[in-house]
């Protein structure tokens, strides 16, 4: 397969700290590639190298066939990048911001009006074209930032925690737009701490301390990362039970999911014991990506 992004042993050091450590990635066209990992694991640094903003210390990589080290300037016109901080102009209107970015990407004047109209439609910004950005709520700003980053119709889009601090309704709307773009052929690489968003990705790479420790489809990760039997326990005071269950010899892991406890047992024959111990319902479940995330993060540290 022809990949849109490939990296080989990609590494970035800051002083004596290695932020990204010999990373090998390949991203296929049209994929929604989820890039997950704990805070400080090197996600943003990787994305910034792929965008040609930051030079690699070692290793190599290609984006759309251009080399990261020698052709960084050629990469930039073909990609869209939305960072954690939206760089919009508060004292310009929605339309003016889009017009500004259309200018930055040198979109010919005769195409601009049409293109901006498309972005307003796509990002559900209709009716707010003349509003000052300062007056928009975070969810609207975020969609406008997305519109600005894809005004040049990039074939690959990098999104670095695009939904931090955004309400559930706005997040859903945002991801539906992302899915629509991917469906039309745009490749999307996205970092997120929301596991329901990770579920919407076609591939997930998980990094920790700069190293790639898992890379697969959400389905495969759910089925293969955890060893043992995962069960769900509904108890009245889950937080109190957490410490008690963690200390049981046959419990490998125990974590809180909303008001429920997820308990990883060595073997399914321990379900009865747990049922007696907690005097509650104990039901086997398919692991969620959150379970996978926590297991991977713990395993890598331990």
């Amino acid at each position, binding site marked *: 397969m022809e990949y849109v992004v490939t990296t080989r042993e990609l590494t970035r050091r800051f002083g004596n700290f290695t932020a990204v450590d010999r990373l090998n990635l390949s991203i296929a066209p049209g994929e929604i590639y989820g890039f997950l990992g704990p805070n400080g694991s090197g996600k943003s640094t990787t994305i910034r190298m792929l965008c040609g903003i930051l030079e690699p210390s070692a290793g190599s990589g290609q984006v759309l066939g251009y080399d990261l080290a020698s052709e960084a300037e050629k990469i930039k016109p073909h990609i869209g990048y939305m960072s954690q901080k939206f760089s919009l102009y508060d004292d310009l209107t929605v339309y003016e911001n889009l017009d500004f970015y259309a200018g930055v990407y040198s979109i010919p004047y005769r195409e601009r009006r049409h293109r901006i109209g498309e972005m307003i439609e796509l990002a559900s910004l209709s009716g707010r074209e003349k509003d000052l950005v300062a007056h928009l709520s975070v969810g609207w700003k975020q969609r406008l930032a997305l519109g600005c980053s894809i005004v040049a119709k990039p074939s690959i889009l990098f999104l670095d925690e695009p939904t931090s*601090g955004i*309400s*559930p309704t706005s997040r859903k709307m945002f991801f539906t737009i992302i899915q629509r773009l991917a469906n039309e052929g745009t490749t999307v690489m996205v970092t997120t*701490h929301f596991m329901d968003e990770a579920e919407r990705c076609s591939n997930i790479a998980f990094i920790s301390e700069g190293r790639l420790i898992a890379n697969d489809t959400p*389905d495969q990760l759910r089925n293969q990362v955890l060893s043992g039997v995962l069960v769900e326990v509904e108890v009245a005071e889950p937080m109190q039970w957490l410490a008690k269950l963690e200390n049981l010899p046959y419990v490998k892991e125990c974590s809180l999911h*909303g008001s429920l406890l997820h308990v990883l047992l060595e073997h399914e024959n321990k379900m009865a014991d747990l049922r007696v111990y907690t005097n509650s319902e104990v039901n086997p479940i398919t692991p969620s990506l959150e379970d996978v995330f926590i297991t991977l*993060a713990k395993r890598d540290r331990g």
Partner: protein
Amino acid sequence: MIFTETLTKKFSSITAVAGVSLQVQQGDIFGLVGPDGAGKTTLIRMLCGLITPDSGSITMVDNAASGESSASFGYMPQKFSLYGDLTVMENINFFGAMYGLNGTIINQRADEILQITNLFRFKQRFADNLSGGMKQKLALTCALLARPRLLVLDEPTFGVDPESRKEFWKILYQLNQEGMTILVSTPYMDEAELCKRVGFMNNGRLVVVDSPKNMKSRYPYRILEIKCASRQPEIFQGLPEILESNFYGDKYRLVVQEAKIAEAAVVEFLQGRDIPLYRLKETKPTMEDVFVALAEKEVVEWSMSSQPVN
């Protein structure tokens, strides 16, 4: 612990908080949720005495909001407001001094709190070199220095990874068990699920206050989960029986009015297009579903009819 009556705040033509009457009881973990721009931060800032209300009243134990005694509550703002070029301990000393504590007491309390927040080993590290989750824990440490009886946190886990968020909430629970009342706003619905009571705000109004359990049992719709051969995100969008549909990698989650009718419609729809159906089942609503439903205008009646449950 906190009582507000018809609390209102306007910023020029926008009413950020509109007549909010809120009660937070001693020992509560009270979660404040709502869409962006609902007025959560403005409400929290008024409670902390940082913004003066236009009208309405706030009554707090120890009169904390009047600004006379800041010792009765701790506040952790949305933005990281610590000094990156100071170490963990230097930040603590600075905030301790701001609260008027002497050096001995600061050291003693810092040791205690840093044990709880798991930052003891990092006393000499510059705040800038802490991870996102650790920064939040340091901000919490500083907010706890004055031994508050009430802790107010505005989106404390913003941008923090799932594991660190869980650790943060363990700490909140421990503090609550030791008798601290907690008021916290959050965009994460799994965190709302952990609160004893949740207040949902929209357009400046407090629309509903209830326990997560009651909120979920009052959810007016039904949820269907579908696995089928299609991977088209918006395939079910046009069906009249389906109110909302979302695609999660390998399955669809549909919000419907009548489960049986919608199930039949989905089966017929897929059959008509020769798309094999692998699984179809009803699932329980989560706080996320409750949030989305509440954020829509149509369900205002549903929420107005509910009573606060203690």
